């Protein structure tokens, strides 16, 4: 068994007296898709926030390839190889799609961003990554449009692309299909599935069809705690999960 690329040890997040994430321990193995599921309010997004550094943790430890990152703010964790997408689309609305991706790619070398003289077109690497992603996300035809003008489906794809642009080791996707129409969901599923070739994926998703089909392992959360962990098959047949999480939802998808 390979060593985990991301390890969360007893991660706890409290807001005053309320414990949103309680003592979570996770091992994310490299090259896998690890899904986090659970009912609304289970603490999935808060767990994401703590792992990616969007909010600081109260207690616990987060290791990326054995290196402690829990004390680092989010922007510094990008340099350790973490990147994320947001549940509520979070783009640069007044900038073009190409510029969104270019800026996201440039973020891994933030010291360059302070250069007040060099033209951004000369930073070839970030520009090249943006071009490749435009093709991969099928956004070439709208590359010059402002990201605010895109359709919801396109925005969600770009949202995932923003995380891919940093070429991270671990990519966190927070409900990438949220609000998507039935036609767009298929494309998104293919996209997420293709990510495992390059990245380790941590996924929050409500669409059980996607989760059961493409996950290597699943963590089920309830009220800030882990209810069960295991392979899709084990989760589907877990009695506690069925009881807690409306059995009907879990039976969707293929084995």
């Amino acid at each position, binding site marked *: 068994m390979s060593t985990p690329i991301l390890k969360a040890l007893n991660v706890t997040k409290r807001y005053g007296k309320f414990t949103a994430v309680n003592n979570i321990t996770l091992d994310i193995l490299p090259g896998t898709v690890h899904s986090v599921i659970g009912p609304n309010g289970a603490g999935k997004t808060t767990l994401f926030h703590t792992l*990616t550094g*969007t909010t600081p943790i109260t207690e616990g430890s987060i290791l990326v390839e054995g290196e402690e990152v829990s004390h680092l*703010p*989010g*922007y510094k964790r*990008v*340099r350790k190889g973490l*990147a*994320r997408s*947001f549940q509520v689309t*979070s*783009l*640069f*609305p*007044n*900038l073009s799609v190409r*510029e969104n991706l270019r*800026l*996201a790619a*440039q*973020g*891994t070398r*933030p010291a*360059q*961003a*302070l*250069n*007040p*003289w*060099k*033209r*951004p077109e000369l*930073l070839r690497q970030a520009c090249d990554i943006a071009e490749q992603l435009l093709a991969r996300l099928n956004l070439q035809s709208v590359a*010059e449009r*402002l990201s605010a003008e895109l359709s919801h489906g396109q925005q969600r794809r770009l949202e995932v692309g*923003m995380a891919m*642009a*940093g070429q991270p080791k671990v990519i966190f996707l927070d409900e990438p299909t949220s609000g998507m129409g039935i036609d767009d969901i298929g494309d998104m599923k293919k996209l997420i599935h293709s990510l495992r070739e390059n990245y380790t994926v941590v996924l929050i998703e409500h669409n059980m069809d996607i989760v059961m089909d493409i996950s290597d392992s699943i963590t089920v959360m309830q009220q800030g705690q882990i209810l069960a962990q295991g392979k899709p098959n084990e989760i589907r047949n877990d009695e506690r999960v069925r009881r807690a999480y409306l059995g009907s939802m879990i039976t969707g998808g293929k084995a």
Partner: protein
Amino acid sequence: MKHIVHFRFTLLVIAVVLLLPLCVGSGTLATEVLIYALAALGCNLLLGYTGLMSFGQGIFFGIGSYATGLALLHLKAPLLISLLIAAVIGGLIALLVGWFSIRQRGTYFVMLTLAFAQMFYFLAYTMKDITGGDNGLLDIPRPNLSAFGFTLLPTTTSWQYYSFVAVLFVVVFWLLQRVVDSVLGRTLLAVRDNEARAAAVGYDITLLKLAAFVISGAVTGLAGGLHAMMTGVAPLSNIEYHTSESILIMTVIGGTGNLFASVLGASFYVLVGNWLSSLWPRWLMLLGFLLIGVSLYMHKGLYGLAQSLLRRLRPGDKAGAEIAKEIH
């Protein structure tokens, strides 16, 4: 051709500084336009490119005036050195003000800049030995631009001084345009658009905002220094809250997010203000109406208005629309 696109706004600015003397009868008034345009450029970098509404620009303007005044009076510094001192001190004070203010966002950020503006005003008022207090710093000389004992450009008459300021203005505008087109400038736009996302893709927001503050402070300090030389006085009013307010209003009226817009805004504010004040002492009331109009219907300011007029005149011009889009 590609290069002309990069320089199109600088070329426009050169046209403005050449046309100003033809439209304005007084050298002092024309110089004032450029000085306030400089200050508005600094403000625009913060407001239009970084999304920071600073009510503290008067601090840097006032401090620039004092710095140049003191350098000329006590150190007998040459022209460019005394202006350099104004820019450096303006930048340093901006670093200090920015360091504290950017810890907060939105309303609290604005309140902090406002608090600093008040604080520096009273500091200048109290330190009479240095600033001249209520009377201001008087009898500031205006040296010629010279090197190795040769006078390169005299600054004695108001039009001579205008030529010097005009050259300096074009250079600073070109530099600033370069900055906003640079990696830094484009990343600042990301901070303006969505801080949370900019942080999530790896940017140190604090550092970027500080960089914008320092550049803004230096440019505004330089403007203050030029102003002190123009009038021969560094008055207390230069560091007053009212100066901050005027700079901000010029920037908003001109339009944010494009540097040339600030040149329009400052020209309009200074020239129309000058004209109206000779007709009606309560002209500021009209300015109030204009500001309401801009806030309600014209978010892109005079620059946006000019853009849409141009587009209407040339309906088939797609390139114009593209440029307009690029400028946001």
